[in-house]
């Protein structure tokens, strides 16, 4: 076994913006690789063995809560499901760009995503009051499955970090925001019309601000069809723009 064990070299970004004496820099740590080692395991070992102050975020450690995205060798990824065996011996870890830095590898995605939910009003609109005695409204399983497909976004921020437009204007809705719009637009329970959506979509931070690099789809850990989302929303917005001009 031992001759195949790799020595991993981690280069990790360090900076605590709350501390006036802290300067951005990188620290280097070395660890012996173990079978099925994920970055979750590695980072905890580094914290517990070498540097108890090292800041990073994990909660579910099963790729579902979206807490742990970071730049892994230059690419946004969920650290908890990244196996070191898929990486070279040298592993560079940086915090996601675009989001406010909390410290080291930890960023404030919560504030960004709450603002996105507020801006897209990511809830079913103009529903009747809930009637506890009524049977549920029907929906075909195919439509439910299609909505679920887009509902799967875990708000990890990988697509935002990879987005050229969001890196210039952090208010750009990016893949996650546009996907959220598509999710509600296809939901028959939501009464918003194409014209209602047009306002958000055609805004400076809406679908036309996308510069078309489509890195978002490549980095999405849930493999959401962001390219389709983008095409769908563009077509919808153009159609809305045209039909309003014709009137």
């Amino acid at each position, binding site marked *: 076994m031992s001759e195949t064990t790799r020595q991993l070299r981690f280069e990790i970004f360090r900076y605590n913006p709350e501390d006036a004496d802290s300067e951005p820099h990188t620290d280097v740590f070395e660890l012996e690789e173990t079978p099925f080692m994920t970055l979750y395991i590695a980072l905890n070992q580094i914290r517990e063995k070498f540097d108890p102050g090292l800041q990073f975020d994990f*909660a579910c450690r*099963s790729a579902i809560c979206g*807490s742990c995205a970071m730049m892994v060798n230059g690419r946004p990824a969920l650290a908890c*499901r990244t196996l070191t065996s898929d990486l070279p011996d040298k592993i560079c870890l940086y915090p996601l760009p675009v989001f406010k830095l909390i410290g080291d590898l930890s960023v404030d995605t*919560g504030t960004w*995503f709450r603002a996105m*939910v507020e801006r897209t009003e990511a809830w079913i609109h103009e529903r009747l009051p809930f009637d*506890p005695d009524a049977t549920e409204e029907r929906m075909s399983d195919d439509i439910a499955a299609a909505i*679920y497909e887009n509902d799967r976004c875990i708000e990890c921020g990988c697509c935002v970090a990879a987005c050229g437009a969001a890196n210039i204007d952090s208010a750009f809705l990016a893949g996650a925001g546009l996907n959220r719009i598509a999710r509600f637009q296809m939901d028959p329970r*939501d009464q918003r019309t194409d014209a209602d959506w047009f306002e958000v979509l055609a805004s400076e931070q809406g679908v036309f601000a996308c510069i078309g690099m489509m890195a978002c789809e490549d980095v999405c850990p849930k493999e959401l069809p962001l390219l389709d989302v983008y095409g769908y929303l563009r077509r919808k917005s153009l159609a809305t723009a045209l039909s309003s001009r014709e009137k």
Partner: protein
Amino acid sequence: MTSKLVTTDVLVIGGGLAGERCAIEAATAGHEALILSLVPPRRSHSCAAQGGMQASLANCVKAEGDSPTVHFLDTVRGSDWGADQEVANIFAEEAPVAVRELAHYGVPWSRVRGGKNHYFIKGEEVDIDEPLENDGLIGQRDFGGTAKWRACYAAAGTGHAALYAVDSEVVRLGIEVRDRVEAVALIHDGSRCLGAVARCLRTGAHFAVMAKATVIATGGYGRIYGQYTTNATINEGTGASIALDTGIVPLGNMEAVQFHPTALSPSGILVTEGCRGDGGYLLDKNLERFMVEREPQKQELASRDVVSRHMAEVMRGGDGVESPYGPHLWLDIRHLGEEHLRTKLLEVWDICRDFVGRNPAEELIPVRPTQHYSMGGVRVNKDGQAYGLGGLFAVGEAACWDMHGFNRLGGNSLAETLVSGRIVGRRVAEYVSGYELRADTGIALDALKAAEQRAAAWLARSGNGPSVYEIRDAMGETMMHKVGIFRTGEELTEAVAELGQLLDDCDNAVLRSKDPGLNPELAFAMRLRGMLRLAMTVAKGALARTESRGAHFRTDFPVRNDSDWLNRTLVRWGMDEGMPTFSYESTGLIDLPPGHRGYGSDERIEMTTTLDDYNKNVLADQIRHGRLDSDEEMGSRLRRGAWKTATG
């Protein structure tokens, strides 16, 4: 800068499904609510729930004949008669409303497909015609320990879909959420809870929140089992801990800890019961299905405590698959087919690919029983009002409301968070109406100062004492190996001694990082003592309970004993007291008489009193143990005898 003193009507500690649903109710009634959470609410552990949410909607053929009464029966049997039967009934009656309300909030529930459907049931392939008139209604899948198909689901991402919909409602209502904030102590005057002291995890600053009502919704405490848990790293039981610290509020049934049969070996990541519900098998090292012989009736779908015990026995008997991390068994879902796995069990597909590099359509999944759910928690009455302190409520996994007794059925927990969130939220709203905030800032500032001093003391300690992480790991080993699936008096005695030693070690532990602000080691250290105290209440409670009930199994007392132990463990432990104090209250009004669960062992020691005599004493007994008045009298929502007509 946050101010040192914040006021609100309703303080909700915890932004998972239970806390948020409760806050929605309070806000809708016109009260101001403030939610605190360790993480942005959508990252709460509720998002990880996979398989489903139980509610007797009875929309598909295999659910025909289901009703709240059958759901009630399954829940009480699942609890091994440890549940409060009135609460179980309230729950079963309101679960369908909670599922439909989620549909109203936007959850894309999987729906019934009218016409021919292909299923796997107990090893057989079956075609069933779902009636066309049910097409498009919310569908159900099978889960363990239930007479009917009852688990409503959104693929294997039910918790995610539910939490996102509920959190959107929180945003829509403009409810304030402060994330990366941890409640570290309750503020109280000995009879009333006045709020909580909180610590900002970004800056290390403490502040006090004064509220008319305070709700603990902090989820489970699986992390006292170290790495041997399916729970998120943030499930450290801080809510139960700060309640225990008061010395006034008791925790209920802490020894009732659930082990889930199918967590990945070795990472402990959960693979949902929906896999077995949809027809998956458990196999030993010879690739034999051992559950068919051991539980002919329910096979792989007996309740979790029963399946976990059979698995542990199989592994002890040498039929586990050896691995560097100890033995495991196999979960086989290959026969369900790739299409089913990539739609109805998509999250399982992802987990297998990401964490064990396996394709479940072609390969077996290595699993073993792992700590999963905390049945115990802050003891409350049927309104969610905690025993002992007026104005303190608890809800969700953090509470012992107590519909689960000694074993929770799969899918009943998501349903509990929403049902109890609605009910308790309504009670909280009523409680704060017409209640003037008592600006007893003296008590609040004292509590604030005490919390600041605790943090300062950690930082001031020097020398070369043990690290907090060593203590945590040792706690996990003790809990898994000596307070696990099978328990004995001897091992539990050792566990109590070891935990006592670890509590001493904790007093000498030294931090390596001295930053008072952003400091993960300090944040963890401040929880560690509370975790050890919870662990101690579990171990001591398990040692004292000399019977086997639900998930609490004593090999030296292998039989359920309704003569001596038809009761609920309560434990109180003030911060300055050396050891916890245990007492035992009546379980609650009993309508369904204790009997055989329909799976597992049929041996038991019968009650020696009559049900009438037992029931006569319940109210007075619980009041003696600290129960505060509920809005409606005890028993008002027990439908006496309804179960006699149920077919389940």
